[in-house]
């Protein structure tokens, strides 16, 4: 891959480094690599400590973003795999965000995603993971997030994504019922989805539901034109996308809308050029990393969605990302999984 | 009486009206020693609010700044027989009757000053409920905000679009994206521009009467500027662009006085100054007051508080503002305008084909200025005679002949102003202006700012006053942080946790 168009590594001492108004029209490639690489290094970092309750997802965000930038070798594969292994709950089979915390569907998917990326699924008890996920399905087809009973379409997505990566979807859960539940969360007003039946459409949950239908090969159930219209209306004059009408744009919503439109074959309904400008404007040219909006504090979560969004838009120098899994496409190919995608209309 | 009073001050301010209080606070704020006195036994001078009894007393005893006072008790209305002269006077102290009532633009000079100086923590406001206009002799609410336009039944759907489009164009005017047509109206009247937009008569009335507050001769630029001022104040607090100080406008000068006192200003009420003397070269002025001599580097004085010996320098006291004040048992306008007992409504009235105007502020008990079930109507117009009732006759006719509320009490008076206030070079005393005819406090603040800058050329006018917790003790080293300098909540958290975890075997 040719990185000559990108800013040189910071220790190379290029002129751009001292420039306070560093260029946000270009991807600050090495700054971001450095940002992610350093993210977990200072254990005494306050931000890092206070976010331990979602550490597993944090690792997934970092690992995925680095792999998309073809810099995965900057992280220590062995210690990450060891960490993931330690987080599997010996009783339930689910994964906790870190040691000392309880297992949850959200971190179970993150763990499986990380291990898939490292091609190391064999180090954990996959049967136990399947048992965990299956055990959380409810009679109406919905999924609990954990044993405490919160129901949300996010967990439907987590369930089928986890099982798809483990290639265990078919014989485990009741897919028909799961589909019926997700479709009961579809709103007639705009064709979008909320977190539960009757809930307002929201780009994040639309991504979960469209992703869910993509994994269960049921995209034909969508009213693609209606939903596509609502989604492309999320683009604002700044080029960024918001998650709901009359809200501010955000890099992570940009990903959710963008990936949904990609799965539905309607990526061309928004201005890719303006979105790219917006995402790039959310880079922190000083420390690296992306923030939710221009000028805000960067974090690892928005960094993945910034990089992921640019990859979907075809930014050069980035590996292709799979819109359904939000993982590098080559890994999905390696696993031989084919989430459904609609062709251009 | 206050014989332990120091005898030397940087600044002595006579009168505790709005502008004087601003100046006193501003001087005190920058470390000047300030003595603030008033010949009355109350704060605020002609800017104060009074109980009903005190107000009547004031009207009975003309003073240099207030004259031509009169008041009348009316027969209680059939619908409200319980409100008699006696019952009203029983509740005298529940009234805050303003001499100089006004409203403030939410983004206007007053609010900006209160926020900037951090004086806002002393004040409390009510957002105005309605801005009204008279249309075909009927009192209607002018839709101010986006949601007002959406909800109003007085405009058709097309009128709503026209109004919104017009206001948006005004709002954008002056920015890069301002449309070309607007430029063609520079130098012409605002009314011409409005007519060219082909708005309906009703919308034109809304804009001219209530939003731009213009008359036929107002220039395009003036109209635009005023409309923008109106729009800029929208959406900050409540549904209209205006605020009214809770418990009456008399609260405001006192807010500034409090700030002045916090920074060491000394207050003396009921103290008048008999004479002020100075010599051309001396750096001091001498005040004789209650048999004592006080020395000040500078003196600021309200027109009505000038010692008799100096008053002639400032010319004759002329009628300046004509005021009417009515207490009614029912509000003006329909139920829609007075939902749930009403709030504070504003109406600008025109007479003589727009040559003259008056301002009406209606207060319900939600303003804190009168008992529940009653309404205060403040009517204000620039004076042109010694008869305030006659000056206001055209406006009271418009208001009361068709929409008559049940009036229980009416009063009229004149506020005066010296003919050449602020212009007397014969004395080194800075004389503030009498209350101007204006909606907000712009002129009063400009006056205070101007006088302050003449005295203290290089100092900031009312910079932000720190909150008590922000005041830093000299010599504190911020890097030497210990638990005692932590924010309150964090310290509590640490304390809780350390107590709970006392037996923990964790190495610190």
């Amino acid at each position, binding site marked *: 891959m040719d990185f000559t168009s990108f800013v040189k590594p910071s220790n190379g001492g290029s002129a751009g480094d001292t420039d306070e108004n560093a260029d946000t029209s270009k991807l600050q490639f090495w700054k971001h690599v450095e940002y992610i690489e350093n993210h977990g290094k200072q254990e005494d970092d306050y931000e890092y400590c206070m976010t331990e309750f979602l550490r597993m997802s944090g690792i997934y965000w970092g690992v995925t973003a680095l792999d998309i930038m073809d810099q995965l070798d900057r992280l220590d594969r062995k210690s990450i795999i060891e960490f993931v292994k330690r987080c599997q709950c010996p009783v339930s089979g689910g994964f906790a965000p870190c040691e000392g915390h309880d297992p949850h569907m959200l971190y179970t998917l993150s763990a499986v995603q990380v291990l898939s990326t490292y091609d190391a699924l064999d180090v954990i008890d996959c049967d136990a993971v399947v048992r965990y996920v299956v055990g959380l399905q409810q009679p109406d087809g919905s999924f609990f997030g954990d044993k405490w009973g919160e129901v949300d379409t996010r967990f439907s997505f987590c369930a089928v994504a986890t099982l798809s990566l483990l290639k265990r979807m078919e014989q485990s859960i009741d897919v028909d019922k799961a589909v019926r539940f997700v479709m009961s969360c579809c709103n007639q007003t705009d064709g979008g989805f909320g*977190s539960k039946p009757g*809930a307002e459409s929201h780009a994040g949950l639309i991504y979960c539901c469209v992703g869910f239908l993509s994994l269960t090969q049921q995209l034909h159930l969508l009213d693609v034109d209606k939903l596509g219209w609502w989604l492309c209306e999320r683009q604002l004059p700044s080029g960024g996308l918001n998650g709901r009408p009359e809200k501010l744009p955000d890099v992570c919503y940009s990903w959710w809308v963008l990936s949904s439109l990609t799965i539905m074959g309607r990526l061309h309904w928004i201005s890719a050029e303006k979105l790219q400008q917006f995402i790039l404007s959310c880079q922190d040219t000083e420390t690296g990393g992306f923030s939710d909006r221009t000028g805000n504090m960067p974090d690892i979560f928005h960094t993945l969605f910034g990089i992921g969004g640019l990859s979907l838009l075809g930014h050069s120098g980035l590996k292709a990302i799979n819109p359904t899994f939000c993982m590098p496409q080559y890994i999905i190919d390696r696993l031989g999984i084919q989430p459904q995608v609609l062709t251009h209309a | 009486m206050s014989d332990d009073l120091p005898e030397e001050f940087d600044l002595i301010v006579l009168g505790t009206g709005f502008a004087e209080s601003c100046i006193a606070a501003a001087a005190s704020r920058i470390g000047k020693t300030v003595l603030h006195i008033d010949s009355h036994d109350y704060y605020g001078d002609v800017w104060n609010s009074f109980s009903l009894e005190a107000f009547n007393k004031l009207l009975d005893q003309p003073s240099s700044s207030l004259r031509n006072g009169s008041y009348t008790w009316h027969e209680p209305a059939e619908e409200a027989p319980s409100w008699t002269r006696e019952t009203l006077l029983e509740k005298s102290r529940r009234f805050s009757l303003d001499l100089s009532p006004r409203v403030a633009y939410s983004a206007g000079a007053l609010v900006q000053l209160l926020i900037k100086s951090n004086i806002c923590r002393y004040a409390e406001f009510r957002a105005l409920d309605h801005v009204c206009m008279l249309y075909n002799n009927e009192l209607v609410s002018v839709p101010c905000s986006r949601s007002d336009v959406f909800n109003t039944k007085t405009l058709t759907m097309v009128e709503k679009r026209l109004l919104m489009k017009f206001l948006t164009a005004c709002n954008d005017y002056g920015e890069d994206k301002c449309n070309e047509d607007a430029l063609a109206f520079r130098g012409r009247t605002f009314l011409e521009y409005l007519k060219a937009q082909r708005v309906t008569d009703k919308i034109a009335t809304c804009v001219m009467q209530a939003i731009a507050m213009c008359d036929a001769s107002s220039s395009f630029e003036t109209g635009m500027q005023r409309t923008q001022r109106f729009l800029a104040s929208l959406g900050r607090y409540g549904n209209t662009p205006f605020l009214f100080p809770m418990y009456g406008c008399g609260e405001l000068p006192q807010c500034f006085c409090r700030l002045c006192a916090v920074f060491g200003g000394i207050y003396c009420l009921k103290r008048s100054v008999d004479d002020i003397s100075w010599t051309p070269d001396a750096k001091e002025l001498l005040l004789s007051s209650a048999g004592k001599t006080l020395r000040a580097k500078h003196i600021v004085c309200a027109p009505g508080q000038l010692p008799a010996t100096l008053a002639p320098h400032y010319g004759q006291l002329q009628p300046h503002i004509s005021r009417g004040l009515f207490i009614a048992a029912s509000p003006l306008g329909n139920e829609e305008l007075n939902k749930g007992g009403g709030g504070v409504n504003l109406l600008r009235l025109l007479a003589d084909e727009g040559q003259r105007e008056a301002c009406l502020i209606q207060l319900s008990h939600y303003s804190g200025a009168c008992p529940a079930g009653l309404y205060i109507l403040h009517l204000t117009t620039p004076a042109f005679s010694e008869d305030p009732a006659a000056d206001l006759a055209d406006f009271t006719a418009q208001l009361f002949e068709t929409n008559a509320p049940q009036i229980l009490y009416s009063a009229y008076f004149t506020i005066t102003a010296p003919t050449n206030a602020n212009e007397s070079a014969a004395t080194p005393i800075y004389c503030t202006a009498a209350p101007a005819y204006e909606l907000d406090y712009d002129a009063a603040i400009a006056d205070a700012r101007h006088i302050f800058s003449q005295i203290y050329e290089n100092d900031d006018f009312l910079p932000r006053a720190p909150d008590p917790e922000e005041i830093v003790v000299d010599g504190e080293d911020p890097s030497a942080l210990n638990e005692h300098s932590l924010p309150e909540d964090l310290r509590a958290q640490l304390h809780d946790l350390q107590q709970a975890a006392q037996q923990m075997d964790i190495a610190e």
Partner: protein
Amino acid sequence: MHGRVKVRTTEEERERKKKEQVLKMRAYRAAMTRIQKKRSAGELDDELLGLTVQILQRNPDISTLWNIRRECVLRKTGELQSALKELEATEAPEATVAAGKLEEVEKEDKVEKEEKDDTGEADSKAVTGVAALAQQLQAIYTTELDLTEHCLMVNPKSYNSWHHRCWTLEQNPQADWQRELQLCNKYLKYDERNFHTWDYRRYVSAKAAVPAEQELDFCTEKIKVNFSNYSSWHHRSLLLPTLYPNEQHDRPMSEHKLQEELEMVLTAAFTDPNDSSAWFYQRWLLGSGAQERDQPVAVAAFRCWPHKAQLALKKPYPELPQLQIQLISEQQTWQLQPWQPTNGEKTQWQCDQAIYIDPSQDYVLALAGQRLKLSVQPSDKSLYYFVPPHAT
């Protein structure tokens, strides 16, 4: 992590902040260690509850701590409930009375404890015992509700706090749903778009059996305050079809109500055409009702030549080959099969079959309970059916 503005700090501030953070971190770690130790020792007591409060108040997103609270609550309520049962059992003859009293005592507490019981001394003792336990039980739930309320003030979008609140209410057979409704009103005043609050409102109003009319009025008020409130329009769209059903099922609601809604949404669009909320709502109003939605196979076009038939659907229907699709004339009926998809989305299908077409006859295509009248294409004598887009 959303919406945090990056501010340049001076070296001093940075230093101060850092020290503050170190202290905070130390406190957090100490408490977490202690919590985990107590939990694994099975000490699900008030001290443990107290420790979780310290952290949750500042960071309600740590789901494990909520789980621990639930474990503690279950332990405590379980103990109280079995104590209650025991008490009732010892008063065997009066057991049913006592149980019945329980609710009455609850009510009495609110109505200023007027008439004390009239069942005699001995019984009243049992009742007070029961009442005291019941009160303790309620106190446990109240503590949880108060904590979630506090946490929601810190972060009104905390999934965990909202869920814990639901969980607590579900545990309590005497939950006060009206109070919850008031809470929704309060939070929606602070943030009229918080979808958590709207979701919670739907959950609560179902529990409290709030009439749909009342909910609709609430929506209308919210829209009057600010019509750029997509959440409110959405909530409205859920209420109207049940409140004002459309007899023909061809519109989302009755004609009369539809007129009113259109008037309202047009007013919004005329007031501010840039507000998108109204446009989505208007499109829904003008869209079709239940009929088309319920029809899984919607034919967009059909064409039939002597040697093949082609079918285009409005929406993909992968199970098409399993349907019976018939071409019917006055004299003959053809079973059209087998069907092959001609595009990936499975909206276009083809059936290669020999068919004799007599242009002088009338033909009908029958599928999935629909009968579509076909026309003849004069140029090549083929049969066709075609719905112009947006014909309805």
